[in-house]
Structure formats: C-alpha cells, structure tokens
C-alpha cells in the first residue's frame, strides 16, 4: 500500500494526474469492479483496504450515499480535484453506485495510533467538541457526532481520516474549490477557521477510532 501511495504521489507530482494501471485490480481484485477495465485503480491511492493515508481519504466503511455524492461532485466539478475529476469522468452511474457500495461494505481500518503533537490535538479536541463561538465557529461534533462517526449520507465520518486530507478539505471549502456541501454549511464553517484551526481539528480527528468500540457503553 505504501508503495502504491508513493507511486501515486510521484505520478501526481509529475503532473500526470492519475494512476491508470491496467495491471492493477481496480478494487482489491474484485471481479465486478475489475471489469471496469481501463478505469483508474482506486486502490493505487486509497490502498487495497481503502484505508487511505496522507492526503488521500479512507473510503472503507464510509456511507455509500456519501461516496456516491462525492464521485458525482468530482464529475460535476463541484468538488475540485484534478485527479479525481479524471477518475470520475470514466465512471458511469452504475459504476459509481457499485464502487460506493463496495467501499461502504469494507470494514473501517482499526484505530490509528498517532502520537502527534499533544497540544495541537488538545486544541483540535476543543474545536471539535466546543467550537469557537467567539468567531462564529460551531463545534464539528454538532453535525459529525461526538465521536466523529458522522450522520447519514450528508455528514461524513471524520474519525480516523488522515489529517492532511481533512485539512486540505477545509482549505478547499474555504477557497471555494469545493462547493458541493449541502446548504453551504461547510463553506460557512470553513470561513471561520484559520489554517491553525484546520490543522488542529484535523490532527484531533485523525487520532479517533473510525469505528464503534466493540463493547461500547453508549447511552
């Protein structure tokens, strides 16, 4: 996985856009998805288990409806990302639905143990759970849940997503490169976040377990 990621980054850095390796199975070798033929290999960047890493998000265990909406947004250009726009352009609606369902069915990776910068993470936790109302910033948790596990198809899980990916997403909403968020909610939120806020919140969410504790004692 690391190797594929490295290769993927190298290709992106060279300005070639996207990894289109016919030799790589599209999605962990699944026959149905491999049948998409020349479609770029998701696994080349997102990893064989869909766990993501670096600036690449995890897909495993995300709600199917959310993944579908993202692929459509890449295709429509409302979520600006040159690499993913190229990928999404090769996918018809049936492939989008199939891919989304396949990734949604994958188990989320186990918790990332990331020591990280304790002060940064603590600041991120505060923003996540309490926000910074002095500048109009609501807590991330008020829409993404107390554990960052997301709600439905419109509010994706943040827990366990790579920090670099989350920080880049906030920057993209702020700049307007990404404007696929329902009711412009993330645009509003991001407009109240400076770079340090984004880095802190992203660092915090990266440390959270992306799935429910097995013996949870939720209310």
């Amino acid at each position, binding site marked *: 996985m690391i190797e594929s990621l490295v290769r993927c980054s190298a290709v992106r850095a060279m300005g070639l856009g996207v990894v289109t390796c016919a030799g790589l199975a599209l999605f962990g070798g699944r026959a149905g998805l491999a049948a998409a033929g020349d479609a770029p290999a998701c696994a080349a960047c997102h990893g064989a288990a869909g766990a993501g890493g670096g600036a690449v998000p995890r897909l495993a265990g995300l709600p199917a409806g959310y993944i579908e909406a993202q692929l459509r947004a890449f295709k429509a250009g409302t979520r600006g990302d040159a690499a993913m726009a190229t990928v999404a352009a090769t996918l018809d609606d049936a492939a989008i639905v199939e891919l989304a369902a396949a990734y949604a069915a994958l188990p989320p990776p186990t918790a990332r143990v990331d020591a990280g910068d304790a002060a940064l993470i603590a600041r991120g936790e505060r923003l996540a759970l309490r926000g910074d*109302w002095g500048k109009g910033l609501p807590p991330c948790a*008020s*829409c993404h*849940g*107390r554990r960052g*596990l997301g*709600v439905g198809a419109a509010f994706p899980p943040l827990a366990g997503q790579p920090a670099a990916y989350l920080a880049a997403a906030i920057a993209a909403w702020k700049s307007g490169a990404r404007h696929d968020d329902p009711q*412009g*909610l993330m645009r509003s939120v991001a407009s109240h976040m400076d770079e340090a806020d984004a880095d802190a919140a992203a660092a915090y969410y990266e440390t959270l377990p992306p799935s429910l504790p097995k013996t949870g004692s939720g209310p």
Partner: protein
Amino acid sequence: MKRVLGLLLAVGVAPALAQDVGKPPRPFAPQPDGAIPDNAFGRMVRLGQAIFTDTKTHAGAFTGNQLACSNCHLDAGRLADTAPLAQAYVLYPAFRAKTGEVDTYEKRLQGCFRYSMNGREPPLGDKVLVALAAYSFFLAKGAPTGEVLPGRGYPKLPKPARAPDYARGAAVFAQKCALCHGADGAGQKGPDGIPVFPALWGPGSFNWGAGMGRIDNAAGFIKAAMPLGQGGSLSDADAWDVAAFVDGHERPQDPRFTGDLAETRKRFQDTPMSLYGTVVAGKLLGAP
C-alpha cells in the same frame, strides 16, 4: 524570539491600556473554561457543564427525552441570544407568571427538566441542580445582579407583518432544516445511537409546556442560531413561519394537563404564541 514577543506585547497592549482610560467597563463576558478552579467548587462546576452538554448521560434520572440543555443554549450556555446561563442567573429570584410565584434559580431549572427535557424535576438540593447552579454562578462572575444584560434570552423579533404561516414554514423547513432534523422532525442519531441533531417535535422532543413550544421563542432562537453556523441568515418572516411549522406539530402532553384540553390551554397557554389546543393542518394539537 523572546524579544520579539516582548516587542509585540509592548506594541499591542500599551495603546489598548491607554485607550481604556476613562472608558466604561468592558461588556460582560461569561467566564471561560480555563477559569474553572481546580478544587471542590470547580469539580461541581465541571459536573454542571457535563450535565448541561450531555444531559441524558449525567442527569438521566430526570430526563424523558434525549435532548441536551446545550441544544438550545449554545456554546455550553454562553452564547448571546440563545438564552445564556449567566444572563439568566443574575435575574433570580424572580416573579414568574408561569408559576405565579417568586422562583429561585434552582426552581427555574426544575422547570427545564419538567418541560424542555420532558422529564421530572430534580428535588431542590439535588446534586444535579447544585451542579447546574454552580456552573451558572461560575459563568456569571462579575455580572451585575438584577440587570438585564445584552444577549439575555432569545431575541424578540419584530411582530410579523402577516400571521406566521404553517405552509410557508413547511417550505422553509424542507429547504433549510430537514437536512439535519429530518423531514419528520425527529432529529438524527449517529451510528453509535447518540443523537446528533435534536428532535424538534414528536415523542422525542420537548413537551407542550416548554418555552420553545411558543412560536415567539422558537422564532427568536431560529433567527439567532439556525441553521447552525449560519445564524442570522433567515429573514424574520422565514423564522416566524418555520417556528409556526415546528410548533404546529404534536409533541408530548403538557404535564399540567387537567384532563380537559380547552381548560388546560386557557389556564396555562392562553396566548396566540402557543398552538396547543388549536387545530393546525387538520389536527387538534395536544388532544390526549
């Protein structure tokens, strides 16, 4: 580095101090969490904050729904125009028309549990009330008692030019509110079963005795704070309409219900701001 910091401080702070001379004192601001002392009082304050933001977990014996105080009192009870705690704390004891008595702050908190939380009143002296009062007292440090401070309660919107309209409200709701609160108003939970978006009506919401069941309160809150992160974005008319829509749905019975709907309305809710006991969209609201 130290020198640079010192220079910044000198440049940044000195003129501010000079400007403060002869000016009226700063407007009241609730205490930050960082000021909670590390002692027995501070622990009670922290418990109060925990109850306030995660009510069912920490005061579940007295709640009948899964709402949290902080659903309607934002920033853990600090945010102006969302009925902040400190600004309320300094106005008690007070005579209240709702009870016809002079109520202490703790008595007022009992009402929150009975109506907004659709639960039962913690007895006076119960740790839940002590903790919430301690938290409020802590937040209110430095606030003048008996003064109506800016940001208190929910803002009073100017009276609407036309009566708040259920059908128009339904359209606003579908466009601005349903994404989070659900088309059925029941709110939404995360995969861990913990509510993320509170229920606005139906069995999981506040009951007919709650302040938020009054259209004027709801309109003020909605205008100030909704959609979350986009407060102030709705027009006054939209806020009134969507408040009438939300408060025009069925919810748990008023615990003061006498057995007679018309009588209960007349005794406790005789105001055009309550739709309890009236027919809305073909339904008699509050009918047992």
